[in-house]
């Protein structure tokens, strides 16, 4: 068995030797495109002055080019149209207004500096609270109240359950604006091929097929005229899932001027102009009975989605996911919710690792801790009384939860972190004036969303299925072409392991081809913890078809029954005998002696399969131990533990890596990262001196234990786990801070808990 082994990633050797090929490598030597970006958050474009000798593209040049307008088909959604380059009005500081083309990046920047945008500034709408105030200006005239989504749902029995409940516990949770901040910024290289008239766009994207559709639609060209390649991609985390208007301009220019041109975003542009994330505010009240059972939940969800809607998922995704997945791993039957996606003059939001679930989890986990305090039960007990224990379980929103280990992971985490021992240490520390705290975070992570799951959101473009094409070549090597698109997830290794087991070959004999629309079947790319589940499932199905083909040839060759064919170590043998034939020989027959194939068999060895499950839920419990310095407000993480269950792990080493990375980003949300706009809508955090991702020095050791649920929700038994670390960690850290500061009466519900914020809470509590 290869599945379950901690194989080192096949991808890493080249990357570590500096032999990876990123857009920046491909772009080297091509002309450079530099965008001139709006210096104000909102204003009317009066004039664009172009310096002498400069090649500049503005909205006027893009005549006939369409707009970007992702759609949801629901009454509570208002579509917003985004021009590729604006003609009349700018909507956020950093929005691309014009593009300069020059032989080198330096010269392009020189010219871009000299392009003068004459803009008459208008009052911008900055921040959620302002946008929702009754006298707020409208960001888009046709969007009343600045709400692009305003969705409501109340279960019939809500009031009856909510009103009489003895304990009502409220939390007011804010999660700041963040950047997914991949190490490699966005960029694209568009090259025109005069002999075919096609353009090849090499872009840092998580979804080459989707981007091809988008660009072809906006430009009004056949998809066949465009090839999109995702070479090595240095992280995406969602920021590279959605369409970049800059890529559209690059492809347009490559076609128009029959040239090769590249735009490579710098870090400042990545902050001002690449999709942001989070910026959410939830007001939630839980109604608990005397036993601490949550009977009803009321939620007011507000998501600041910025100036435009991201293609293809739309900015509805944040609010609608929060609405649907708010219950998390907890059981309650009555629910009343209002969810709004609010537009402002800020950079647009796109789903970032975890999307709304880090905020959902922080909300529920803060709620559980506050309820435990009020009701007088332990933080473990309150969770045990509310976690779902029987599967399949159908949530109040109609989601079906498959087999999971909600209680088991909690219990195991409590045991490993030694909660009782910690409470003693905490008491002793307090007598010395040292404030330490422990926080738990129990959550589920919906993964492997199939078409039916996305269809529930009424998306105009409904992602979901994944297709795999598999070929065994005459030498017996296997090529697997997938529509998913790894950008650091190690898919090449894990899919090889899966296929190797199914076909009885070594993983080195399996080559995964991805990230190229010319070479791979239409697919949705890599996001939402889906690729292991979807591309993995499709690979398994394709392997079955491949086996059937090989078995038929082998049975013919070995003169035995097809049912008796057994696959192992590169050969097919007759079960219970040592009569065998090498797979490479079967491959030769399939291609070179097809006259020997039985009647009706097609020559060659190519199959294809599609997988489209409904989805599954991973789960985990995180536990954090922190120490708070009362005088400075600094928070130090002393321990971080993850007990998680993603079903069967294809490659536990890769799984651990995903947990580490996710937790790091979760800790970043909890303590460090924040994008700050001033009151005029200008971004203040435009460099890595101001926006502070944690480094190795700030990261605790992350302890991981895996539990394994056997779920039939996926055919591989694997559940996704890419986002879980980021989903659970903020709540664990914030709960730990609250636990540490409980003796002072501090309640802190805001991300990130910067030293200054923590200090302010402490000072307020001490002053009172």
């Amino acid at each position, binding site marked *: 068995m290869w599945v379950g082994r901690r194989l080192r990633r096949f991808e890493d050797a080249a990357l570590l030797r500096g032999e990876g090929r990123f857009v920046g490598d491909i772009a080297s030597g091509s002309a450079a495109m530099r965008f001139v970006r709006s210096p104000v958050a909102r204003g009317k474009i009066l004039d664009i002055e172009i310096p002498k000798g400069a090649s500049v593209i503005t909205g006027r040049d893009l005549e006939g080019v369409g707009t970007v307008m992702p759609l949801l088909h629901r009454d509570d959604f208002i579509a917003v149209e985004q021009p590729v380059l604006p003609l009349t009005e700018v909507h956020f500081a950093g929005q691309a207004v014009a593009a300069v083309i020059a032989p080198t*990046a*330096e010269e392009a*920047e*020189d010219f871009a*500096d000299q392009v003068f945008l004459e803009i008459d500034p208008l009052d911008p709408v900055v921040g959620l609270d302002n946008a929702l105030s009754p006298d707020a200006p409208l960001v888009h005239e046709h969007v009343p109240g600045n709400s692009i989504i305003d969705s409501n749902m109340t279960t019939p029995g809500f009031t009856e359950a909510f009103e009489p409940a003895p304990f009502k516990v409220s939390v007011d949770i804010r999660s700041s604006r963040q950047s997914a901040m991949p190490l490699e910024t966005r960029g694209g290289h568009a090259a025109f091929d005069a002999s075919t008239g096609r353009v090849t766009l090499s872009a840092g994207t998580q979804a080459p097929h989707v981007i091809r559709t988008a660009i072809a639609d906006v430009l009004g060209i056949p998809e066949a005229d465009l090839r999109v390649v995702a070479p090595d991609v240095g992280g995406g985390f969602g920021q590279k899932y959605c369409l970049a208007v800059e890529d559209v301009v690059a492809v347009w220019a490559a076609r128009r001027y029959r040239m090769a041109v590249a735009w490579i975003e*710098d*870090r*400042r542009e990545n902050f001002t102009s690449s999709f942001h994330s989070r910026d959410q505010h939830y007001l939630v009240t839980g109604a608990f009975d005397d036993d601490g059972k949550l009977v009803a939940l009321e939620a007011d969800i507000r998501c600041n989605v910025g100036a435009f809607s991201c293609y293809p998922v739309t900015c509805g995704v944040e609010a609608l996911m929060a609405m649907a997945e708010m219950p998390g791993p907890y059981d309650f039957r009555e629910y009343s919710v209002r969810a709004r996606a609010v537009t402002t003059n800020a950079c647009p939001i796109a789903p970032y690792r975890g999307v709304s679930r880090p905020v959902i989890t922080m909300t529920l986990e803060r709620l559980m801790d506050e309820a435990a305090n009020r009701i007088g039960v332990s933080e473990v007990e309150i969770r045990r009384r509310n976690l779902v224990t029987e599967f399949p379980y159908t949530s109040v929103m109609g989601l079906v939860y498959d087999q999971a280990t909600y209680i088991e992971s909690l219990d195991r985490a409590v045991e490993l972190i030694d909660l009782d021992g910690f409470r003693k240490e905490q008491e002793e520390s307090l007598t010395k004036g040292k404030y330490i705290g422990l926080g738990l975070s129990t959550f589920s992570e919906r993964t492997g969303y199939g078409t039916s799951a996305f269809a529930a959101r009424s998306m105009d473009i409904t992602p979901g299925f994944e297709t795999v094409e598999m070929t065994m070549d005459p030498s017996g090597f296997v090529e697997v072409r997938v529509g998913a698109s790894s950008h650091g997830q190690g898919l090449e290794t894990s899919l090889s392991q899966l296929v190797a087991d199914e076909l009885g070959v070594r993983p080195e004999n399996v080559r995964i081809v991805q990230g190229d629309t010319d070479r791979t079947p239409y697919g949705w790319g890599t996001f939402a913890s889906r690729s292991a589940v979807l591309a993995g499932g499709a690979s398994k199905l394709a392997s079955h078809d491949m086996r059937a083909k090989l078995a038929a040839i082998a049975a013919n060759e070995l003169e035995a029954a097809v049912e008796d064919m057994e696959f192992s170590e590169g050969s097919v043998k007759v079960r219970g005998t040592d009569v065998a034939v090498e797979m490479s020989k079967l491959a030769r027959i399939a291609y070179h002696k097809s006259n020997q194939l039985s009647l009706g068999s097609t020559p060659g060895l190519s199959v294809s399969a599609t997988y489209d499950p409904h989805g599954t839920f991973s789960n985990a419990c995180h536990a954090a131990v922190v120490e708070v310095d009362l*005088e*400075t407000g*600094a928070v130090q993480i002393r321990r971080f533990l993850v007990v998680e269950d993603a079903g069967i792990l294809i490659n536990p080493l890769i799984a651990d890596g995903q947990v580490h990375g996710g937790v790091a980003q979760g800790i970043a949300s909890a303590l*460090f990262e924040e994008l*700050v706009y001033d009151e005029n809508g200008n971004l*203040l*955090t435009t*460099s890595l*001196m*101001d926006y*502070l991702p*944690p*480094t190795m*020095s*700030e990261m605790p050791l992350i302890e991981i234990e895996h539990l394994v649920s056997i779920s039939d929700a996926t055919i591989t038994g694997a559940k996704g786990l890419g986002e879980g670390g980021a989903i659970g960690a903020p709540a664990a850290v914030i709960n730990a801070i609250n636990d540490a500061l409980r003796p002072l009466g501090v309640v802190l519900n805001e991300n990130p808990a*910067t*030293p*200054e914020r923590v*200090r*302010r809470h402490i*000072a307020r509590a001490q002053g009172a």
Partner: protein
Amino acid sequence: MKPAKFEYRAPRELEEALSILAEVGDEGKVLAGGQSLVPSMNFRLARPAVLVDINGIGGIDSVTSSSDHLVIGTLARHVRFERPVTDGPLGHLLALAARKVGHRPIRIRGTFGGSLAHADPAAEWCMIATLLDATMVASSVRGQREITASNFFKTVFSTALEPDELLTEARLPLLNPAAKIGFVEFSRRAGDFAIVAASSVLDVEGGRISTARIALGSVGGTPLRSPAAEAVLQGNVPSGELFAEAGEAAAGDVEPMGDIHGSPEYRRDLVRVLTRRSLQASTEH
């Protein structure tokens, strides 16, 4: 994030560098370790027409002791101070500070003189120079002059150096062997510029503080001494209460500016805490 066009000059001799500087005047910029200048050129905050790279000049990176001073050549790299460059409390103080200057790769390139000339009010070396009232030596074709720290730092990123002058060395007074030194800083992450930094030197004679120096970083346009805190300490017996009082006095002495890393009030809070902690740490080892 690419620099604007510039001309690059790389003199091999000090005299040559000085004459280039005299020739190009305002248009020129000295390139030392490049750890502040290059990022600001990439951001196009700095657009020098001529870059005068002094890294090829020999003999301006030495660190030597005279009878009463430590003499630091301008090109001495930060990393050099991670281990004490001189016996006694001064070497130890510099080592405490050096480890807080950025990250290792930055310390390997960045220079002592570059940091002083850059005059970031959060920079460790600028605070230490202020604490010890160091003397800076500026050279030009017009000759050499000495400038004390209190006259050297003008405001954020601005010093008394004229465009044609090269900072060639800094002289730090050696400390009393029994001096008690303290250095603490607060930043969000390892290697970041301090949100507030505090440093102190105490001489204690007969159980009482005979001289006290306190300097604070990142609380104004330049590093600052705190006369009020020094007055609180002067002539008194060191104790936790006294140090806390000095912290209060220091907090009252500053009018910090705010930025996204810390509001004025928060910085003032930190001044109180860090001043006390610096003094406490100085008497604990």
